[in-house]
């Protein structure tokens, strides 16, 4: 059974029917199974990031439904959706969006700040998340004292500290060079191997190659793999498999 079900989702900005309306998503449907690693590719302005924010319970679609673990996400109130994000989702942003005034441990602890846990438990969870991304020894460093790759891994640690069932990533290596980008992608691969469901937007085919399945979006619609011999194979189908 699919963990995430996106049904005929459309998203338009601007007043509908005003002529100034911009339709970014046009009837997108897809499913993601638990433990799956899905990559979403597409040209700039194709609707990748919009689809990711819809999946992230942050951007109410104009039409269609998002169901995660049986929950109709956009039927929830705004505050309940905030709770949903906290319980179900982990975000890794392209710019990482780390708090520059908090050290690595504090940055990772941010999602725990509003949980009714003891300070000790919060600390242990944050340290464990840092260890998972290989930053256990950098807990006291400020983001500015970390390399680009380390910042990317720190952003992943923050995203997984709550143990969310679904990890969403928006071009996590977009600002990194190839070597540090690979460093970050290895973390995604390892997490997925450990059972983490990952949905990642990327421009980078090598990153996408790590996914079980690659989706292509063009002009707001899911499209066949432009590189596939049989275009029908590229649509919402598993790719050849995880890269080693």
């Amino acid at each position: 059974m699919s963990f995430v079900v996106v049904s005929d989702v459309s998203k338009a900005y601007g007043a509908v029917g005003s002529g100034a309306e911009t339709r970014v998503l046009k009837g997108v449907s897809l499913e993601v199974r638990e433990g799956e690693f899905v990559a979403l590719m597409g040209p700039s302005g194709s609707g990748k990031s919009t689809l990711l924010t819809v999946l992230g319970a942050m951007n109410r679609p104009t039409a269609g439904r998002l169901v995660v673990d049986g929950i109709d996400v956009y039927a929830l109130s705004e505050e309940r959706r905030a709770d949903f994000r906290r319980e179900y989702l982990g975000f890794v942003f392209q710019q990482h969006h780390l708090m520059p005034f908090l050290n690595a441990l504090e940055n990772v602890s941010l999602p725990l700040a509003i949980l009714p846990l003891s300070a000790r438990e919060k600390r242990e969870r944050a340290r464990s998340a840092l260890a998972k991304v290989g930053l256990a020894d950098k807990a006291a460093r400020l983001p500015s004292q970390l390399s680009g790759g380390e910042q990317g891994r720190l952003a992943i640690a923050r995203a997984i500290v709550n143990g969310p069932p679904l990890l969403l990533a928006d071009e996590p290596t977009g600002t990194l060079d190839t070597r540090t980008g690979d460093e970050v992608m290895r973390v995604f691969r390892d997490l997925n191997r450990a059972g983490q469901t990952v949905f990642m937007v990327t421009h980078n085919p090598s990153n996408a190659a790590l996914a079980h399945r690659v989706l292509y979006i063009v002009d707001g619609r899911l499209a066949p793999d432009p590189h596939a011999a049989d275009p029908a194979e590229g649509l919402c189908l598993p790719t050849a498999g995880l890269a080693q």
Partner: protein
Amino acid sequence: MRISTIALANLRRRKGKAAFLVAGISIGIATAVALLTLSETIRDEVGLQLDQFGANIVVVPRSNSLALDYGGVTVSGVSFDVAQLSDEDARRVRDIPYRSRLAVVAPKLLGAVEVEGRQVLLAGVDFEEELKLKRWWRLVGERPRGETDLLVGYEAARALSLVEHAMGDRSVPVVPTLAQTAEMKGHAHQSMDGHFRVVRDRLTVAGREYRVAGVLTPTGGREDEMMFGRLDGVQAHLGKPGQLSLVEVSALCQDCPVEDIVAQINQQLPNARVSAVQQAVRARTETVERLTRFALAVSGVVLLIGALMIFTTMSGAVVERTKEIGVLRAIGFRRAHIIKGLMLEVLLVSTAGGLLGWAAGLLASRALLPYFSQTGAGLEVDPALAALSVLTALAVGAAGSIYPALRASRLDPSEAVRYV
């Protein structure tokens, strides 16, 4: 990691802005504290002076048969043998529970006497008390001392040819008050070379010779047509030893209603009619309230400016922190969590500003007090004022930041995280 940790870290990160906010709130609170403290001190002083400036309570015998006007106050039964007051009654007035509030208790005996073929109202008074009560009196001559010394009102003196105008000018110069004259003693006459002078200092009143110690400059009041002598002397002269016509009382009504003092005197003197001079009480209350209203209005304006400053700074901070707030919303912070975090920052800043402002206001009041107060009364460190300062600072901080905080909580996280 708690929301407060984030708030503290944010304040540490923006030390300059936090210091600016603390300074803004401090200045507002300091101004309000200084104004209110000074106005309270001045108000107490003005109140005290107004309390001492004339009587605000009059005690007369309980008799409504006839009345005689005295100093704008209707005094009943003063020249008839009804139940008179006595010296003992004046002493009992001084024994009421609120006796510490009594600034002046001035007993009087009034009687009409014939002076050189004219009927003149003679008042026996305790000059010590009377001079405290009638601070506006000024005289030419000296303060009466002996049993046969008289103080004569200006119109009475003129009618009895006791005074003469210099160079035909009838205007009256500014001359020292009675209290000042008393201090001048022997130099009094040299100082009184204004526009009228006393030309005769002997007067026969109902066959008894008196010395005219001084003549009051015109007051426009009933005393212009009266003569004043020492109480015991007048009592003996009128054949009413130990008797009184009325007792004028000046009560300090700062923290107690004059009605309470009236009630207590009434209890002590069941046979007397005690009434508050409502006009005096009302004038005092209005003057004092006007001072307070002025201080409150200025403080209000200053604090409003403080709130606007916080509003501007916090609005700027929200714009500056759009990305940060968006991230927090994206990772599951509720709107209430965002508001809590921002308000916590303002709360910390406001508390610091309130305490600093209170201390600065107190110091400013101490420095400025000598310029505003004649008595230079000391200022007390009032914990209630400190608490009020902090509470006001918190209210100002909350008023200035609630809208920016609400706006921050409504930020669309999907837009906010795109913001660079």
